């Protein structure tokens, strides 16, 4: 587990380079009024502090949940129960994912509330949950990931033909935000546990693919939401 110094370093490294570029752009090209630029700096401080606390919380409290539950699954033995637990985890983890919240808030504010943030968040969480369940089923049944990727993306592009344009960009973005600072380490920890015990075969490589499949679900879910809305 990375210590606090490591986390602080990690977060500063993730945020500083963009901040420096923005600072240079501000003094050369953008020249926002000082008041507005100060709000940017307030954002830098709050977002950095927030990420530091959040990542420490993820390491102390959330990744262990993934690891422990992942490693306990074989004792349960029933495939349907394992899939159900994976589904539930996919749902609750997505609700807590910071990037999902940010995207939903932006969509809500840009659309003037037409696309409600909570509706979007729960749709994304449901889509992710279904695909986390499917991804675990894939590991248990030993189905090559290729088929699921081709099938998933095939379905996405077919559905996209029937969805109002205002939903298309958002739905693809929804696939990108579910793989944020919580979900990625969480599901890697969970998937490794599941593979190690359920598959009974070598673990390298097979635990991967969980994150990839988890980002197909939300795209499909938001596309379907778009069809219902439209």
């Amino acid at each position: 587990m990375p210590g606090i110094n490591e986390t602080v370093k990690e977060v500063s490294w993730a945020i500083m380079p963009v901040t420096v570029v923005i600072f240079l752009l501000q003094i050369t090209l953008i020249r926002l009024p000082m008041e507005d630029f100060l709000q940017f700096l307030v954002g830098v401080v709050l977002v950095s502090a927030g990420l530091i606390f959040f990542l420490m919380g993820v390491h102390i409290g959330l990744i262990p949940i993934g690891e422990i539950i992942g490693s306990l699954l074989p004792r349960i033995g029933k495939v349907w129960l394992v899939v159900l637990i994976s589904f539930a985890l996919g749902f609750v983890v997505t609700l807590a994912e910071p990037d999902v919240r940010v995207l939903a808030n932006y969509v809500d504010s840009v659309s003037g509330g037409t696309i409600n943030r909570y509706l979007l968040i729960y749709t994304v969480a449901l889509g992710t949950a279904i695909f986390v369940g499917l991804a675990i089923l894939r590991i248990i049944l030993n189905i090559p990931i290729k088929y699921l990727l081709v099938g998933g993306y095939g379905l996405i592009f077919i559905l996209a033909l029937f969805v109002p344009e205002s939903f298309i960009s958002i739905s693809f973005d929804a696939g990108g935000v579910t793989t944020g600072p919580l979900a990625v380490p969480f599901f890697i920890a969970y998937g490794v546990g599941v593979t190690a015990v359920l598959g009974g075969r070598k673990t390298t490589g097979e635990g991967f693919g969980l994150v990839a499949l988890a980002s197909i679900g939300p795209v499909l879910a938001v596309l379907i939401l778009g069809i219902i809305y439209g």
Partner: protein
Amino acid sequence: MKVFVLDGITHVFIEVVFALIPLIIFFLIAQILFLRLPWEKAINIIKGIFLAFIGLTLFLQGVHVGFEPAGRLMGEVLGSMKHRWILIPIGFVLGFVATIAEPAIRILNYEVDKVSGGYIPKKVLLYTLCIGVGFSIALAMVRLLVGIPIIWLLLPGYVLALIMMQFTSPTFTSVAFDAGGVATGPMTVTFIMAIALGVGEVMADRDPIIDSFGMIALVALAPILSVLTLGLLYAWKERRND
């Protein structure tokens, strides 16, 4: 001069309560039914969730009072400039530097190292990704300036990925598709996205809902194509060795 720091934090606070309660309920049910962790461990987990709670509140508050309004204003300034094309190189630079220090890439490095037996040097992977993401955000800016439907970019991108997949090993494929998430780091989704929203809002013939969103999807595609390219190189080297 007035600086906003805590404005609207009650809303954010309530949002975060609802974001984390399902996770807490899930954990408690699991703990009672089958986990039965010793108290020490369970309390550690509760502590972790509490830290995540504080963190998520500060993070969302920072986006709400800082990144969103400032990013949109900057986008509006850039979008109403005479030489709007400048957004394209700016997008490239922002994408490049947002990725160069992204911590998630270290995990990816480790995985790629494992599947390629160290054949692909860390620096090569990192710079391939940075250029890939820089290119994606530049492309997102081109889209905003010209108004290209997102499908026209994503469909060829994914078709290309599916074709490349046929020529790389399944392990590389898994790693590549899992890598889609690593590039959409905290600055991209919050701040760079807000700039794109500002540009979309200020340009008369653009709708930010259609033209600004889609950027994250383009960024997510970059690492997939980057890792698959390296996978092709690796497969080519393997074949030559046979």
